[in-house]
């Protein structure tokens, strides 16, 4: 990890841990002050000048701490605005990807959308929200743009794909947090005269859980590398989001199973991670969506072409020593 990224991660970890039990009103000003929103905005445009590897590090920590406020959305919104050359407004800017709800929409000061190669910035008075909630109880609001855009410019970003990457990164953190809780629990909780961890069936389940978390870590890292090193990361994003969705499907039941009833309570922390994971699986494309996108893309490559394309892409990411 670069020194800069380590500093960034240390800062994020400290702040996110503090915000873990707060709410939007308390958390947002602290996040805004810390300046995560401009993580991907170049330094010469007043941003942090980070890369997607930095975004992964920060969002992974946000997921691990179940931060109850938008960390990913403003990063993506400001990135798109910078790409399109639109000046960013003050306050919290969320994202409206085609066909997707706006996370935390009701709290936003503005919303960025990208459709048909054009980025548009809508101030909140041009937006009408229909409020909704995620399984984790977080705002997922549908938006209709009832006023005109404050600004618009050509932009090729695929906001839904970037949102999918954000959820992959957050899920890798949330899975780690759920896994850590489960490990602690099976080591402590005794039944039949010994810790649950001593039962082979429990050990095997935890090993499977670790495999799924590992798969998400690997796909998140591979995806960040592609976003940083390739001109287009659609293949990697589709693969990573789909694999993450599969991991959520396999791992969250194990997390709950080994916890028993305590894991089903509101008070115990597990649900803060698993309810978010349940939501993220659907956000910015569920399994069927990304499987279709990826499968259609691969079908055009032909049987041998799949391997040729996979290796061509990863070979371009090799960093000379």
């Amino acid at each position, binding site marked *: 990890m670069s020194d800069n990224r380590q500093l960034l991660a240390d800062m994020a970890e400290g702040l996110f841990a503090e915000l873990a039990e707060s709410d939007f009103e308390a958390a947002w000003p602290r996040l805004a002050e810390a300046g995560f929103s401009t993580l991907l905005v170049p330094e010469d445009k007043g941003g942090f000048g980070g890369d997607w590897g930095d975004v992964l590090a920060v969002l992974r920590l946000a997921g691990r701490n179940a931060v109850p406020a938008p960390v990913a959305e403003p990063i993506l919104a400001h990135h798109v605005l910078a790409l399109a050359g639109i000046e960013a407004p003050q306050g919290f800017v969320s994202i409206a990807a085609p066909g997707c709800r706006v996370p935390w929409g009701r709290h936003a000061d503005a919303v960025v959308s990208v459709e048909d190669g054009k980025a548009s910035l809508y101030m909140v008075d041009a937006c009408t929200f229909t409020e909704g909630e995620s399984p984790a109880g977080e705002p997922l609001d549908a938006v209709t743009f009832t006023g005109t855009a404050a600004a618009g410019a050509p932009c090729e970003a695929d906001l839904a794909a970037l949102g999918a990457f954000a959820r992959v990164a957050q899920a890798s953190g949330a899975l780690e947090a759920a896994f850590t809780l489960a490990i602690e629990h099976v080591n402590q909780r005794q039944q039949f005269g010994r810790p649950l961890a001593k039962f082979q069936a429990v050990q095997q389940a935890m090993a499977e859980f670790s495999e799924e978390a590992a798969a998400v870590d690997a796909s998140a890292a*591979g995806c960040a590398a592609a976003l940083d090193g390739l001109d287009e990361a659609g293949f990697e994003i589709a693969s990573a989001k789909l694999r993450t969705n*599969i991991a959520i499907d396999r791992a969250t039941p194990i997390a709950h199973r080994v916890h028993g009833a305590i894991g089903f309570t509101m008070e115990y922390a597990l649900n803060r991670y698993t309810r978010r994971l349940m939501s993220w699986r659907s956000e910015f494309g569920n399994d069927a969506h990304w499987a279709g996108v990826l499968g259609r893309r691969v079908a055009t490559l032909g049987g041998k072409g799949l391997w040729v394309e996979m290796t061509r892409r990863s070979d371009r990411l090799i960093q000379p020593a």
Partner: protein
Amino acid sequence: MQIFPIRPFNPPGDIPALRQQVRDLVAQHESHWQLESRANCWFSFDEAFSKALGKAGLLAMNWPKEYGGHERTMLERYVVLEELLALGAPAGLHWIADRQTGPLLIRYGTEAQKQKYLPGMARGEIYACIGLSEPNAGSDLASVRTSARKTPEGWRVNGQKVWTSGAHRSHAALTLVRTEEGSERHAGLSQLMIDLDTPGITIRPIVDMTGSHHFNEIFFEDALIPLDALVGTEGNGWKQVVAELALERSGPERYLSSHALLVALIDAVGPEPAPDIAQLIGRLTAELWTLRQMSMSTAAKLDAGEDPVVEAAIVKDLGNAYEQALPRLVQAAVDADLADRTDLSRLLVWLLVQSPSYSLRGGTPEVLRGIIAKGLGLR
């Protein structure tokens, strides 16, 4: 605790050119390969191709030059392996020697052993097999009973190995034996590099459920093995075997065994597949891509001198699950006539019958998950 910290895969040199070299070599040989041999291809044999790889400098890639190696990196070797597997090249004859027996000899062997075996292995002419399993020692390998008694003339070996892949095509078996009388479990074990033409050794074929003769039984009846066949230290066999197994867990052969069927599926359904088939292809691709990320990262750790035991077990377990599920998922989704002679049907039938072995060879899921659980501090 991050379970799987990622290490980037950064081999030196011109990697696209290295891939092209392998692809060109495969193109020169592939016309006489059976379709079925292109699936699970590291269990298929083609002597001419093994020798051609040796000649091209694509075996023993990271071994010292003095033993016929090419002093390239493990990661360049990894690239060659994954190309061979993805293209379905029959790589089975030299596979064990190149992957584990040679490296083990480099690490623990005597100078004479190195001179005797390594250059021939590097040329693709000397093949080796793995003499671990016995009738009563499978997952519980520490219960091996085959014994070697030290006499002035040599080691007297008695006992039986079983499931030995390719023993009938191999020159030598790196064999785990009990050298200390009365010893139990992990103690008193040693490794002998046993030439299979030694009197007192009988190799009997076992036909597997695909109808192939791939693995064997090896019987040792008072076979006299030269004293200098001992590899490494007497009594250190368990530790050496554990090191050997680490070389065989996280490689691309743990998730690419069914790749030929994915290739055939994509070709069979064409550029505009029905939505459910497109989704199946997408799902398999996502798993494949992710496993490759994991396997490459583990290779990079091995190359950097780390000891990624847990990561390697994770890659093997997930990889085997994927390559084993692939034919079943294709069968469920595609209305294939199994008695048909299309490429898709032939590969599907072959892999349905072959794939139960994937999660047996090299350690079962229960054993691998036991290793992971140990790494997680649960046992």
